[in-house]
């Protein structure tokens, strides 16, 4: 039953895949496999290493006050990298809008996120509960 389902799925994959790869098939296939490989072998080790390094430096009391804004800021950079890093050549001619605003806005959002986090930390410290971790799972 499981085998039958898998084979049926692969049949559909082949039907759509042949059409998807019509053109520069090697490059397109490289993008599909490359997306998974780049994510698994670059992105995950990168943010795992950053997180471990940050934990070592900051300790359990501070880590989440950095982790949360850094995660949100990094996510925005990951998703909007073409605009933020001005990699999208087609943007300005098509929209008549300047792509130069995005880097500033991202930096601004990053600053606001870290400032909010610092504020929460300061408030919790003054009220006597600076630790962000809770013992229950």
């Amino acid at each position, binding site marked *: 039953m499981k085998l039958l389902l898998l084979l049926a799925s692969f049949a559909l994959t082949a039907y759509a895949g042949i059409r998807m790869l019509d053109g520069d098939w090697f490059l397109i296939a490289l993008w599909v496999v490359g*997306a998974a490989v780049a994510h698994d072998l670059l992105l995950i080790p990168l943010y795992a290493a950053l997180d471990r390094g940050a934990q070592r430096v900051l300790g359990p009391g501070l880590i989440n006050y950095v982790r949360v804004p850094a995660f949100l800021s990094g996510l925005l950079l990951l998703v909007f990298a073409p605009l933020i890093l001005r990699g999208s050549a087609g943007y300005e001619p098509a929209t008549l809008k300047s792509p130069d605003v995005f880097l500033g806005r991202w930096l601004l959002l990053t600053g606001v996120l870290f400032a909010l986090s610092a504020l929460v930390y300061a408030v919790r410290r003054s009220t006597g509960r600076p630790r962000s971790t809770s013992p229950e799972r």
Partner: protein
Amino acid sequence: MNGNKRGFWRSPLRGPWFTSVLGLVLLIGLPVLFVTGLLSYAAYNPDLGRGNDHTPDRGILGFFLFPWPTSPHWLYRVTQGIHVIGGFVLIPVVLAKLWSVFPRLFQWPPVRSLTHALERGSLLLLVGATLFELVTGVLNTQLDYLFPGSFYRVHYYGAWVFFAALVVHVALRLGKLRRGLRDEGGEELRAPDPAPSTISRRGAVALVGAGSLTLFAVTAGQVTGGPLRRTALLAPHGGADPGPEQNGFQVNKTAAGRGIRAADTGEHWRLRLRGPGGDLALSRAELLELEQHTVRLPIDCVEGWSTGDQTWTGVRLKDLAALAGAEPDHMYVESLQRAGAFRQVWLRANQVRDGRSLLALGVNGAPLSKDHGFPARIVVPNNPGVHQTKWVERLTIGRPV
């Protein structure tokens, strides 16, 4: 023990509950993206042929196609807004889900049987196709065409590759997901020797949710338009609307960028109208003397942004069909633009017949700006933006051959 280095993975977050909660969100969210994507495909009326059809080899993958309706006029705005903003919102969920099962990539032995090998192959396709769809979609909304091939082709067929693998994954894992929500089963996901906790499981889910919410906050305003557009800080069509020199709303593709020369749109411009009654050539002044109608409609882009409703004035397409001696039927629209995949397009009879479908000459009380399609453009309710043809040169009433 699976005989591998499971001890290397130490995050106490990993486990059946965390994976299942994220899995449940994706179980609902990803099919919504798939279905809204199919709807967008149908909205192009690809069965009408050349101009509309960017995947003529679709075969059975076009089985669901239907004539795209003109009502409600906000339908495409909603479905495509959900598709694009929903895609952004699900990115952190996908990333967290993949992180939660990451150690399983290195399970040992890697393959236990033929079925197991096929299952893992299917998973590779699922991960690859999901990421490919997200990456191509995200790049396309930012007009960064790095990826190989036509967006329509790779994103559409890629969606079917994704769907084929998703069905298998859901069928094989649904029971596990249900047990996982009660934090049962799925022992292989847990770290055997977890490190001390630095964030609670609920905290981690909340963090992923905060990621989704942040992406929503910086993009959603480009769908709603109006004052909220300013809140879409990182969306390609966020920020302030342009001023009256651009009729007060967002431009997508400029006249200069499409190779429109001033001489083409000047006083020598004529609308060529072709029908059973013969050929007509109408100047802009002559068009303005015909009965003018006013409609309030948005421009909705496949890239997931919309203008608010704009006030268009112009001549009804069905009146132009009558002028050409025809009953309202399909209409072939050709633009002055020399380049671009959408320089010609078929409108279906239901679109031509709709009294709100115009050859617009003005918008918001002024003539069209050159970047919004001067001297004349198409406006049809619930029509994807790329089919709201600008700089119209010729209208032909008839059927695709």
